[in-house]
């Protein structure tokens, strides 16, 4: 009965997926090609930002969250650092 299926298939076309494939490829490759000529700066960026914050506030390195969303026109990098409350051990450090 595959001919029947053939006839009915043409009635309600599924959304074409090839265009999604192209778009996703273009975005991921745009980013990967940058990474090829430059070393990945994110780990270092994260380290340095955390080090700067740590100069002023004592923070728990385990409670630093980094998330990245790579997009076509814009990417967002979010770095979330939990600052301990006033009651927490250590408290504020004097800045140099």
């Amino acid at each position, binding site marked *: 009965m595959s*001919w029947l299926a053939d006839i009915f298939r043409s009635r309600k076309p599924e959304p074409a*997926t090839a265009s999604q494939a192209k778009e996703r490829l273009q975005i991921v490759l745009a980013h990967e090609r940058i990474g090829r000529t430059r070393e990945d700066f994110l780990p270092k960026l994260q380290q340095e930002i955390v080090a700067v914050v740590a100069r002023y506030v004592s923070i728990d390195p385990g409670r630093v969250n980094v998330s990245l969303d790579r997009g076509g026109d814009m990417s967002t990098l979010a770095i979330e650092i939990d600052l301990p409350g006033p009651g927490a051990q250590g408290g504020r450090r004097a800045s140099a």
Partner: protein
Amino acid sequence: MAEVIVVTSGKGGVGKTTSSAAFATGLAQRGKRTVVIDFDVGLRNLDLIMGVERRVVFDIVNVISGEARLNQALIRDKRVDCLQILPASQTRDKDALTKEGVGKIIEELSKDNDYILCDSPAGIEKGALMALYFADQAIVVTNPEVSSVRDSDRILGVLQSKSRRAEEKRDPVKEHLLVTRYDPARVEKGEMLKLDDIREILAIPLLGVIPESESVLKASNTGNPVIMDQESVAGQAYKDAVSRFLGEKVEHRFLEPAKKGIFSRLFGGRAA
């Protein structure tokens, strides 16, 4: 001096060995003295696709380690003159391949051949790096599918940074795109990446498009490179690609779905 061509892709299962076998046979059919080398040490398969698996005595690792002379390891094809196969080892691992060892083999083969084809293993590890290191030209085999296109892009980056030509800051490796398993009917339905999209993304010159075809499996079943099957659309497409490689202007074929008659529609006939 022979021209060294690597057949590579990054991703596995896209048709590197099928293409290497077809291309090497095609070049030899055109009278070019050709050697095809299997770099997939540990997982050799070129011998099967070329139909010489029962004639393998020594392999590339034996030659590198000095256990056999190059001439003893080379297998002369019985169907086409001036075509030889250098098999990979099935028992060693890829660390047995060294730059010096492979370099010596290529240098020696260069003396009396026109083309040396290097059939790369999948991945970007040692075996793949050895296969592409000495290349003058690269045939990048790509399926119309996201992971294959991405890996092809990656391997292009490796060619541009890790090949000997890149290291010695000479002219870059000449790149060719070979799209395989292309199904024009699915492209027309919007289910498969279009040829133009792949070309736009990878942005390297197109050498050929091999349509999805049942004859490729038949060819590997019998150990005859698909290019020897005159009836097959894939075989014809490989022949065209070889001609283009040799500088001839040949129109691309099989880019549109084959017009199906009512019978093939009913009985689900597919491309030969």
